[in-house]
């Protein structure tokens, strides 16, 4: 018996190892074959430009020919002293903060109102509230340019009806309120998107849980606070993530409505980059702005996902 065992085992073992190695190799070849096209696009159009930007940011370069005038970190040092750039970062942060404090709570409140419950005509409201998100940013900007026009705009006309001795406001021409006006438009445009996400989150909460809360002793506010909102945590964390990234990257709406003005009072990092990097043929300088924007969003993305969204990736039952 022992003889048989010795004869069989040494032969069978390497055979099965070979087979499993072969299978594993085939598996990896298949994966490589399927991933290759996507990976190539990712490398050529995403990763390479990022490194190129990093490289260009070390030169004074107008975009023509090859960059030759190496300046080290001068572009970054210039940026650190540039008040307009620092202001644009501050504006981006302002938009971000207002989004988190105003836009998201508004979207959540509306989602709670029209996402469920017995509000008559809530499906119509839901559709209407989502419409702004369907418009492109260009269309939105153009609509609001009309609405906020100081003389003939709907906003001033409406306020004129309700407010006595109303003096027309130059919404986009006044340094002190242009950013708020821009934020108002951003909210109009994007709250529907967050509202839809919240509604999806709400629908995933079993009705039983809220009912159990009511029986356990909650009033409606307590159901919201102790059950609904904690269970929407993953959706809320996701919308915060998207909102912060969106605020940092905001360009189109601001550019069409104010081009960052008046006197750079609505400049965001992206409009600053376009205005002072691309339009003025300072591509090395612009690349430095791009690198900073990239690092800001990258650090936030990784940090936020690691620290805040980690729990949402865990298996949930």
């Amino acid at each position, binding site marked *: 018996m022992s003889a048989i065992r010795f004869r069989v085992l040494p032969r069978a073992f390497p055979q099965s190892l070979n087979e499993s190695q072969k299978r594993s190799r085939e598996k990896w070849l298949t994966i490589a074959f399927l991933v290759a096209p996507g990976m190539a696009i990712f490398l050529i159009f995403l990763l390479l430009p990022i490194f190129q930007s990093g490289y260009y940011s070390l030169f004074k370069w107008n975009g023509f020919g090859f960059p030759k005038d190496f300046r080290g970190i001068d572009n970054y040092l210039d940026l650190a002293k540039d008040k307009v750039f620092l202001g644009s970062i501050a504006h981006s942060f302002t938009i971000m903060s207002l989004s988190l404090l105003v836009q998201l709570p508004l979207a959540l409140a509306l989602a709670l109102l029209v996402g469920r419950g017995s509000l008559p005509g809530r499906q119509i409201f839901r559709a209407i509230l989502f419409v702004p998100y369907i418009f492109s940013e260009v269309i939105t900007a153009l609509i609001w340019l009309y609405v906020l026009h100081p003389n003939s705009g709907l906003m001033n006309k409406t306020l004129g009806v309700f407010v006595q001795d109303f003096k027309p406001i130059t919404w986009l021409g006044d340094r002190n309120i242009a950013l708020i006006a821009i934020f108002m438009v951003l909210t109009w445009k994007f709250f529907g998107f967050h509202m839809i996400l919240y509604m999806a989150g709400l629908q995933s909460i*079993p009705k*039983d*849980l809220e*009912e*159990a*809360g*009511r*029986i*356990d*002793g*909650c*009033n409606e506010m*307590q159901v919201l606070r*102790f*059950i609904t909102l*904690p*269970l929407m*945590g993953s959706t809320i964390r996701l919308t915060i993530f998207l909102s912060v990234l969106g605020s940092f990257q905001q360009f189109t709406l601001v550019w069409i409505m104010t081009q960052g003005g008046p006197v750079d009072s609505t400049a965001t990092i992206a409009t600053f980059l376009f205005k002072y990097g691309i339009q003025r043929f300072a591509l090395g300088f612009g690349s430095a702005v791009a690198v900073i924007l990239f690092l800001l969003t990258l650090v936030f993305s990784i940090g936020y996902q690691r620290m805040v969204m980690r729990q949402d990736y865990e298996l*949930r*039952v």
Partner: protein
Amino acid sequence: MASVSFRNVWKKYAGDVVAVRELNIEVADKEFLVLVGPSGCGKSTSLRMLAGLEEISEGEILIGDRVVNNVAPKDRDIAMVFQSYALYPHMTVYENMAFGLRLRKTPKQVIDQRVREVGKSLGIEQLLDRKPRQLSGGQRQRVAVGRAIVREPAVFLMDEPLSNLDAKLRVEARAFISKLHQRLGTTFIYVTHDQVEAMTMGTRIAVMSAGELQQIDTPQNLYDNPVNIFVAGFIGSPSMNFFDNCRLLEEGGKLFVDARIFRLPVPQKRYEKYRPHVGSDVVLGIRPENIHDSHFTPPGIEPASIEANVDVVEQMGHEKVIYLEESGKTFIARLDPRTTAVVGQRIPIVIDLASMHLFDKKTEKALE
């Protein structure tokens, strides 16, 4: 501790859909009432109206002496165990159980003491720090019960709390809930579609169908004296055999049921009761357990012998469930396990006449 009353309670939805029709039930204090019926019969809706989770369209619901129609669920002094258990997934077992007490601003030490006491009594004290997703089905069920009892409510409501358990656990959980009722001495109202749960747990059972209460009685009375064909068919497993197209006849001072495929004498005891119905069309009901192998007839029955063909034999160990066929009519018998009946054989069987049920064919009500 409290009684519960449903008084002429209706639940109507938009479009004239009636979910519950004129429900009248009086549940005594400390009673274990089971609401049983098939899906869509209105039992869960009735329980949810009692819990305050559904509005009452008409009528009154009282807990104790108080009409609770317009009282918020939190102020009804009830606790409910849901079919899904509805444990808060973001809270630990401890927090789940403490939640209700915390909302009532119970002192922390009291909460801690109560949660640990209840946890221990339910055998879940080692799970208090876990989240619901880390628990098995049976453990979740216990936590859900624990969350309900920790608050010491006046009435316990249970909405199919065992449906998500496997068969073995369900048997254990049945005994566990029955014991719990004995120990707590609180009013329990329990909804299920499973007549076995109803029979084994309830001190009284309310059978519902199509939004209407069919009969409310003790399990034994429901089994022995069903008021209509629905209740007769619903209570008991396998279901009662019904022989349609029967006629009640009188010959020589005796009553007979002519079922066409056989003819059975009616016990003399019921002569007076059934005599007014002579000549009318009736439905004969015989439970599978009242049909016996002629070789293993138990003592004390009123036997009537017939013959039938064996269609299917299901071996259960403690008995054999036999599908019998006679002139195209199939019926079921639960026979002694020693029976030698095999498929295709024609066997003599004995029907216990004392256990026969007769129903009016038109009204489907038991003959009075």
